[in-house]
């Protein structure tokens, strides 16, 4: 009985130590990408380009609207403008988010419910952040899928969330035009689960 009590106390102590260590590690590594008073870019979300893919308008519109929400949630941008907004023309530090659909697999919620393994809705887009003069600041290929639960349009929410996460985790060059030619981050392949990022200097 006494041994059990000792074992329990040791277990509790170990659990407490592990918890406090993880908390201190989290405090030591603040999230990257948070604004620190430095000048910020503004962003204008462009219309979704379906490319050569036949995509239902509901999906195109849902990606666009979800992207607007997600860009605001990243807190990386001073202002978020809609496509065609007249006020965006007066903003000096403006990035334009262009989204081009590369691949779309139509799914079915009923098939997902009945079979579990089939019926996934899959979206793959190329997402670009460019300056007003067309210079690419960030380019990523991002997926958004619905495999198990939720309606087909949920893929657009997941896609926009993944794009937001990618932008949040990326390092954008400072808005000052003199230094904007610094590092341009370019990622050729990035998916929801595994993200590969490579940096290169463009002069």
């Amino acid at each position, binding site marked *: 009985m006494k041994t059990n009590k000792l074992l329990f106390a040791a277990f509790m102590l170990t659990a407490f130590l592990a918890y406090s260590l993880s908390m201190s590690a989290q405090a030591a590594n603040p999230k990257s990408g948070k604004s620190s008073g430095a000048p910020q870019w503004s962003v204008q979300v462009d219309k979704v380009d379906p490319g050569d893919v036949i995509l239902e308008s509901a999906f195109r519109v849902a990606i666009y609207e979800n992207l607007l929400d997600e860009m605001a949630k990243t807190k990386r941008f001073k202002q978020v403008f*809609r496509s065609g907004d007249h006020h965006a023309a007066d903003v000096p530090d403006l990035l334009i988010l262009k989204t081009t659909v590369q691949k779309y697999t139509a799914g079915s919620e009923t098939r997902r419910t009945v079979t579990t393994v089939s019926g996934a809705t899959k979206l793959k887009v190329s997402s670009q952040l460019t300056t007003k003069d067309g210079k690419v600041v960030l380019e990523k290929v991002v997926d958004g899928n619905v495999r198990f639960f939720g309606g087909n349009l949920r893929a657009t929410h997941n896609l926009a969330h993944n794009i937001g996460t990618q932008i949040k985790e990326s390092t954008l060059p400072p808005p000052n035009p003199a230094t904007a030619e610094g590092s341009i981050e370019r990622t050729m392949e990035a998916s929801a689960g595994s993200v590969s990022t490579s940096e290169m200097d463009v002069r």
Partner: protein
Amino acid sequence: MTYKPVSRKAPARVEFPIRRTLPCLILLIACSAMLAQNPGASPAAAGGSSVRATHILGLQGVSKSAGGNLSIEGDALKFQKTEGAAAQVPISSIQDVSLGVEDRQVGGVPLAVGRAATPYAGGRVIGLFSHKKYDTLTLEYLDADGGLHGAIFEISKGQAEGFKDALVAKGAHVKVEGQTAAASTPEVKK
């Protein structure tokens, strides 16, 4: 004369789970089939300028999945929530109206839990019956600053076409037609 007590429950013990779950399964299938019916579709509303709709996303000031009444009032498209304020979009600002067809499971979380809890993979059978097809009405419109907005509504099957025609008759622009076939496209690669 002596009688030996005989347990009546003993032989039935093997059948007990089946006896108990079969009526539950039948009840769930019946409920889901009833839910999959189309209670909101009334012949008077079909093709008219007022339909029951669920706002999926995009309309300013209206929460997602809000139910209400979508109507044309004067020169504006009005979405009146079941409870709360209405949202309006001038019809002249509508740049595109398109239709689609979607298929989704009905019953929400309660039925999803019921499906998951049904033994012998009965949830999959329920899933076959508990789905409903509906039309989607997608609008693209401009705000006062020229910013592009998109709004998606879910409308009972067969009613969206008439509502779209009513919008076009009132002056809404339509860019592309016949994109509903995209839903049946299995896979498209660039």
